[in-house]
């Protein structure tokens, strides 16, 4: 059996359609994941010295609750495989809804389930990236700002935020690439992303070498785009 380039060119339209879907899931997933991650990451250090001073009055128990809930979210998501999360959301969650409510035909679109899975999963890991970066900012800077009489809000937005963000870029790059590759697991819930497209073509023509080589190169090209985008962002920001 020879290596046939025509197999590759013939399957390109379907693979490109799959790659497009992979991009869509990834982009939506990491945007949502950033929102979840920043909220949960800051939530895990709410009311601690990393974000200024110990809260007073009613904010004390609230901050404890926020820390506890954020921690629970991170540990549950980090502690279970993403493929189980996807299957739970797609197959089990609708059953649960039907069981406890009277919405008879409740179901989740496979693509929606895929995006939500990435959002929730990436969010948990990004939360730890955010927490680590914020905690790494020299506390003396907060003290200097506070001793000028500047509010915590301004210090978080103008001092801690920019410095922590610069430190987040390398680990965020890692997470974005992992999330992109994780979309290949959605083959199990029938989303027509790149891996699924490759699998289907392969099942009809048995050209494993050509197809999986092409699929691998396409993933590599996409992850390279992410890596280079973050590298240039890193270079654009001042070094400190």
């Amino acid at each position, binding site marked *: 059996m020879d290596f046939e380039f025509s197999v590759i060119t013939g399957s390109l339209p379907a693979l490109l359609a799959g790659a497009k879907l992979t991009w869509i899931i990834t982009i939506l997933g990491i945007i949502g994941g950033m929102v979840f991650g920043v909220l949960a990451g800051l939530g895990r250090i709410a009311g601690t010295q990393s974000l200024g001073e110990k809260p007073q009055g009613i904010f004390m128990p609230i901050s404890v609750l926020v820390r506890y809930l954020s921690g629970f979210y991170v540990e549950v998501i980090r502690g279970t495989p993403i493929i189980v999360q996807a299957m739970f959301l797609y197959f089990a969650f609708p059953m649960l809804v039907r069981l406890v409510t009277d919405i008879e035909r409740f179901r989740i679109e496979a693509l929606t389930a895929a995006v939500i899975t990435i959002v929730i999963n990436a969010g948990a890991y990004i939360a730890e990236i955010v927490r680590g970066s914020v905690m790494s900012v020299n506390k003396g*800077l907060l003290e200097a700002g506070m001793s*000028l009489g500047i509010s915590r809000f301004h210090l978080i937005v103008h001092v801690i935020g920019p410095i922590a963000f610069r430190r987040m870029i390398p680990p965020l790059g890692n997470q974005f690439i992992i999330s992109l590759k994780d979309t290949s697991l959605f083959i199990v819930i029938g989303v027509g992303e790149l891996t699924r497209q490759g699998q289907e073509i392969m099942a009809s023509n048995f050209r494993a070498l050509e197809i999986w080589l092409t699929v691998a190169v396409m993933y590599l090209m996409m992850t390279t785009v992410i890596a280079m985008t973050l590298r240039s962002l890193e270079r654009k920001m001042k070094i400190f």
Partner: protein
Amino acid sequence: MPGIIEMKNVCKSFGNKEVLHNINFSVDEGEVVVIIGPSGSGKSTLLRCINCLEMITMGELTVDSILIPAERGRIRQIRLEVGMVFQQFNLFPHMTALDNVVFGPRKARKMNKGKATDVARNLLGKVGLAEFENKLPQQLSGGQQQRVAIARALAVNPKIILFDEPTSALDPEMIGEVLDVMKSIAKDSGMTMVVVTHEMGFAAQVGSRLIFMDDGRIIEEGLPGEVMKNPQSERLKDFLGHVKHH
């Protein structure tokens, strides 16, 4: 008339460890109080209690007629009137020298950008760094960074400035330039200053009072020249001996 800073029977503990024991201490407006003492004697903690970076555990503290402990809004008000200069400078590393000085008046005093920039340029000029306004902290020497930090503290127009070992992290040849700036603030503006330092020359020249602390207590207090010449306690004699030998 009560002083601008009044401490009555102030104690401060970290967990079970009491680091300030029953401190009684008062600073009048325009005074330059210099605090000396061995490391771990509670000098920095005393300073940090004044602008509420640390909260006193017991006793009574009044700063600019505001009684501490106070709620958060009042604490911000105190900090507006009490500037601080740190041993490690703590300049914002992502801002230029000018932006470091502009930040306080802009965000804490709600000054408009043009006016805040004027204030900042004027102060950078006063500390001799007019031509360095566009440099980032990492492009400046330690002495220059500390002078920017002093300008930053002055920019919000406080009534009191606290100096926490401002020259201890500097190379010897840069200590003079920072002390000169501090001396000129003390002489020209009549600013109330509380200075923790090991620079005995500075204490003698501009200090209106010298306080010696050891083990969380004020051991001796008086005019700098007299305290240095006639130490009463063994501990101060011992300490002065060590300082002079270096």
